[in-house]
């Protein structure tokens, strides 16, 4: 028993243990609060999107932090996951009446389709590196958004019908699943906080298993020194593809969860800004730092809502906070000070 405990808090596994503990504790605390003292509607409405953005940021961290490639098109994968989930959920609305089961099917479908696209895009993309890769992923995100903006998909007694660019569908008493720029409307809201929590756990599990496996070590070695890694027989393209595909699957999952939390969803939501937002979360939390990503996403997502009382100055303050914190976390002085503080408190505790 003691050994397991020791193992959990050993240097190698500490980050993982903290991640799971932190997420679980936060979940329990919020659930308890919700069921006892109650919670404001605002806070409740932020729970699921926060979970989505955490998963998105974690998936992006896998590419940017762990694999060392800059992707600017993660909103594209999120969009694929989101709209696949909406379509699957719409199609199975009458056949699968259990909400949880339908959520699982939709999210799984969203993740898989996003993963397939991730694989397709990784073939040409991962032959490139650095800035080139960033630009190609950026273009990819835009392509996905534009494609979805032009798809009209509907279902009626004759089956599934689709048209492109202009809406030529003539449905007989059926239902539109996707209507171009208007996206999906009238979606059944089946995401909830618990499902978001479970998906964060799955994401953490996948990422940590990967980092701690031989694939993960290969990915990181390819990041740190490409030539050295190649010289010991690691296939750079294969390891990078693996990281990229896993990341796109997770981003698709985030999108699916997100889509099923709102009654309407427009493709314009998944634009360049969303990709950048995710990147900000990742950089803010520290490249490759899983716990940092979770915390920074939570804070940065909730902050603008908490600043609502400042009215017109809200976004200004948000921007200032962003700059100040970025500066502080990178300043040697502040780091030294924190280190000293840390020593002062923890060394004392250890001596007792």
């Amino acid at each position, binding site marked *: 028993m003691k050994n397991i405990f020791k193992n959990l808090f050993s240097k190698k596994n*500490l*980050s993982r243990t*903290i991640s799971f503990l*932190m997420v679980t*504790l*936060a979940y329990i*605390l*919020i659930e308890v*609060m919700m069921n006892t*003292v*109650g*919670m*404001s*509607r*605002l*806070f*409740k*409405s*932020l729970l699921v*999107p926060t979970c989505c953005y955490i998963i998105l940021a974690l998936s992006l961290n896998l590419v940017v932090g762990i694999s060392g490639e800059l992707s600017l098109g993660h909103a594209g994968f999120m969009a694929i996951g989101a709209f696949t989930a909406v379509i699957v959920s719409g199609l199975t609305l009458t056949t699968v009446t259990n909400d949880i089961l339908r959520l699982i099917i939709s999210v799984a479908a969203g993740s898989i389709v996003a993963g397939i696209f991730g694989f397709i895009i990784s073939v040409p993309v991962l032959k490139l590196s650095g800035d080139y890769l960033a630009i190609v992923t950026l273009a990819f995100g*835009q392509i996905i*958004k*534009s494609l979805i*903006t*032009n798809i009209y998909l509907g279902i009626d007694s004759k089956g599934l019908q689709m048209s492109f660019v202009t*809406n030529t569908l003539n449905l007989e008493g059926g*239902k*539109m699943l996707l209507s*171009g*720029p*208007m996206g999906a*409307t*009238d979606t059944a*809201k089946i995401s909830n906080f618990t499902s978001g929590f479970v998906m964060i756990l799955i994401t953490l599990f996948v990422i940590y298993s990967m980092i701690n496996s031989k694939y993960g070590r290969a990915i990181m070695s390819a990041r740190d020194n490409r030539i050295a890694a190649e010289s010991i027989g690691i296939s750079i393209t294969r390891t990078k593809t693996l990281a990229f595909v896993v990341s796109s699957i997770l981003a698709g999952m985030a999108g699916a969860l997100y889509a099923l939390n*709102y*009654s*309407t*969803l*427009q*493709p*314009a*939501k998944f*634009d*360049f800004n969303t990709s950048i937002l995710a990147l900000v979360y990742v950089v803010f939390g520290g490249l490759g730092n899983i*716990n940092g990503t979770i*915390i920074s996403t*939570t*804070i940065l997502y*909730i902050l603008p*809502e*908490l600043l*609502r009382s400042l*009215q*017109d100055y*809200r*976004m200004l303050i948000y921007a200032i906070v962003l700059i100040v914190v970025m500066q502080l976390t990178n300043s040697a002085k502040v780091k030294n000070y*924190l280190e000293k503080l*840390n020593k002062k*408190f*923890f060394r004392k505790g250890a001596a007792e």
Partner: protein
Amino acid sequence: MKKLLVVLLAMLCVLTLAGCSNGGSGNGGNNEPTGDETVTVKLGCSGPLSGDAKVYGEAVRNAAQIAVDEINASDSKIKFDFRMEDDEADGEKAVSAYSTLFDWGMQVSLFTVTSGSGAAVAANYDEDGIFAITPSGSSTALVYTESKNYPGNFQMCFTDPNQGVASADYMAANFADKKIAVIYKSDDVYSAGVYEKFVAEAAAKNLNVVYKDGAFTDDSSTDFSTQLTAAKDAGADLVYLPIYYQPASLILKQAKDMDYAPVFFGVDGMDGILTLEGFDTSLAEGLYLLTPFAADASDEATVHFVKAFQEKYGEVPNQFAADAYDCVYAIKQALENIGYKEGYATNGLCEDLAAQFTSMTFNGVTGENMTWAENGEVSKAPKAVVITNGVYVSAD
């Protein structure tokens, strides 16, 4: 262990802050008695107060505030407590804004200013049974969907399909011999909605549409030379712009630069172009737009409203402002008609107001004898205005 400490601290911060915002929740609408027989109604609204579309949000906020101040200063038994939240014209933020207003105890709402945000919260208003009427959210998704009608959601402005149809009808009556080109924003709910109906109605009315593939998207909304050149080459002498004023201002500028001077024709999204910062208003000279409100009208209500708005904010109110002003008065009229007073059953309020709206007739600055259908759409007459010497003038 350092990390753990940081983690715990951060969590503590987030949770305590979240707890703070918890304070105002839970009361669905019981107000403190205000003495006498007056009753204060909490009126909420969300709209863009930052970002691209903020002209609309601010117009609605300012006009609603004028209406609320007027009512509160009068001897009316119904008083309003007005609060507006920023939603950046984004569906996700609109849900947060709605939740904030709900926590505050909103009883009646001006819904949202833009269509995209409105579509995202339409179901929330319906589920929570809060009566809402939007001044400017023109998509039908705000008031009904294919599968169901939101009985408590209403509109003060025309719906997108109606605007497209009305534009085509107006052109058929006044510009029947013109060659028409259309430039629209294909990834925008509003623009695509108007466009679709316009093209259908134009075909039905035998209008000569020579160029209708002038689509652009959010990413290509700075350079319109392709569309304008194509329109010019097709010989179009009327360019229909069912888009918001921001890209429209660029289109006007670029058309001038290439010496292309057709008649430009916009819908309600064009309203606001004259107050756009840094825009040379001479470019908009001769621009037609379809709107229910003309600030130069001489009826008493319009003159009074325009004067009050100018005194307070130093500019001529646009149609969004007028619609918001009307919304507040329409809500007041409905509340008076149902005899709303202290202790009125909160859970029946939405149904009673909806029943009132579908049966009453309202006279405001955006039209006389307005009525509402069961599905929440308004019925009033659109007017065409043309910009002359930097102000709107009725075209008829």
